[in-house]
């Protein structure tokens, strides 16, 4: 299968001021030299804790956040330098589902107008055709036609997220970026939305970039996974490889921290605690960023930063001792 999205050496940095108004300017590298690929029709999950840069990376891919360096190839074309009409064309192909279904819908618009908005701004279709598309979308995401005239506050959280999904589908995109699409929902509703997302992927041949911190959800949704820590990808592998044979100590700790109902697994696994907090993102230490919390860190880790290396079978790890 071909790669739909190919991100190479993406860097996003923010300017921060230290020490009041006269302080020195410094840069915070939220996403630092990150590369990953997503095959057409598949799901790549980016996991990591808050502050790891996963959302920033996704926003950069959607061109909603300016990148500092790197390439973002969609269908073999670099979309980073695009402007104006070319960028508008690209926006049709990349759509976004947001985390919070309460704040991501305009409260003053009716549901049908919300879903139609991307069509209004990104396509030149006639009004009748747009209305037809919106109707079809409501059916596709499991909402009733009479609900099209309602306002967002008249829907439950799960139904609102369905509206958000319908909106993302409106321009028939190739890539949909789902930024924690279920973390604001109740567990029973989560299952409904996750099943819907997978059904839509099958029906429309969608490619997902799935951002999440919930490893259970990621395990269920993704074909491959990139684990991020402090702006870096530390491990990137296919789903089965990553979950059955995690090789980076951070991934191992992350997996062992997830509470499980499976008693056999609980008995077999030893929880790897990583003490302390991540380092200050503005003054990063030399060497590996995980070294200060890593259970297997050696002197070498505090000197040289490990590169993300492929083991020849597509399992990439950034660790000196994996």
């Amino acid at each position: 299968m071909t790669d739909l999205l190919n991100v190479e050496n993406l860097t996003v940095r923010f300017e921060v001021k230290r020490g009041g108004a006269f302080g020195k300017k410094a840069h915070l590298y939220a996403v630092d030299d990150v590369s990953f690929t997503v095959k057409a029709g598949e799901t790549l999950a980016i996991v990591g804790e808050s502050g790891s840069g996963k959302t920033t990376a996704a926003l950069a891919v959607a061109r909603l956040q300016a990148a500092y360096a790197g390439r973002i190839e969609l269908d073999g074309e670099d979309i980073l330098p695009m402007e104006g009409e070319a960028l508008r064309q690209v926006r049709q192909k990349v759509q976004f589902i947001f985390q919070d279904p309460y704040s991501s819908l305009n409260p003053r618009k009716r549901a049908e107008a919300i879903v139609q908005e991307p069509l209004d701004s990104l396509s030149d279709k006639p009004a009748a055709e747009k209305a037809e598309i919106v109707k079809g979308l409501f059916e596709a995401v499991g909402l009733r036609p009479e609900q099209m005239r309602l306002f967002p506050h008249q829907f439950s959280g799960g139904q609102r997220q369905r509206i958000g999904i319908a909106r993302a589908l409106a321009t028939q995109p190739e890539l949909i970026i789902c930024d924690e699409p279920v973390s604001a929902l109740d567990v029973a509703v989560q299952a409904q939305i996750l099943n819907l997302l997978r059904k839509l992927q099958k029906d429309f041949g969608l490619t997902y970039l799935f951002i999440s911190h919930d490893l259970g959800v990621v395990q269920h949704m993704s074909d491959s996974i990139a684990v991020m820590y402090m702006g870096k990808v530390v491990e990137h592998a296919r789903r089965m490889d990553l979950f059955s044979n995690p090789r980076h100590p951070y991934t191992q700790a992350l997996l062992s921290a997830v509470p499980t109902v499976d008693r056999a697994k609980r008995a077999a696994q030893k929880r790897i605690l990583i003490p302390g907090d991540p380092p200050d993102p503005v003054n990063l230490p030399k060497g590996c960023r995980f070294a200060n919390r890593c259970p297997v860190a050696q002197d070498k880790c505090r000197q040289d930063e490990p590169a993300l290396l492929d083991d020849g079978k597509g399992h990439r790890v950034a660790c000196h001792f994996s």
Partner: protein
Amino acid sequence: MAPLLTVENLRIELTTRDGVAPVIDDLSLNLNAGETLSFVGESGCGKSMTALALMGLLPEKVGRVAAGKIIFDGEDLTQASPQRLREIRGNDISMIFQEPMTSLNPVFSVGEQIAEAIRAHQNLSRKAAWDKAVELLDAVRIPNPKGRAVDYPFQMSGGQRQRAMIAMALACEPKLLIADEPTTALDVTVQAQIFDLLTDLQKQSGAAIILITHDMGAVAEMARDVIVMYAGRKAEYGPVDAIIEHPRHPYTQGLISCVPHIVSDMSEERPDLVEVPGIVPSLKDFGRDECLFASRCAHRTEQCLAERPPEKPFAGGQLADCWHAEEL
């Protein structure tokens, strides 16, 4: 030995625009010292209301205990005076809230806030209370507690703030600690640290813990007993292992199987998740004489809509409120 906490047929009513609704309907439970009991369920099922009722913090003029008893350490809290409740709160029963950022005061340092809680209940000088606060921060494993006590909440990470909240809750060595979704806002690695900390502190102090959560995985790790709540009623109650092994209520089954868990025997294939269709009924439908879960249940029969299901006991102390519990 009498249990530390006994709740008998508790009924709590909320006055809403549509009339009076029972947010907690006929709830009974027992909790011994040193044990952990967990409440699970979706939002709007009455988990947090139970916690507030135990603390005597029901919203004034809106919520009231309509029937039943809350016997804590031999004393019925539903009959206790506001002064007495004030003594008990923070001293014998204390609580950790979900959002560590909004439940700490942003304009006081963390040390001052902990010391304030100590001084409210114990006759200590400012200096002594401050020293105790530093000690507590050390006990919840905040590095350099002396230096961090003067920090304001915004200077701490989410995990550290939750630790500070735990330190405050533990200040007077409570006999019962109520943790209302203590880790929902935190990352998994931090959640693991907090759970470890709670377990260790429980071992040292012998306190009982009530853990409110929606994550069955967290229940399995932390608690001995679990109460599954649905629409203000108990759906199932019993030992965690027995209930996860063989849930007797369709709602419990749904809660366990609708979440994608990381399991030991992972396969390439990923079947669709089990869906529990629909959502929790609204408050005005609470209290009807029928099974409130019936509208979302695959095993529904005429009987479920005609009458509220009785409590049925099973081996090992498992109780399920379902007409079809034997068949499940």
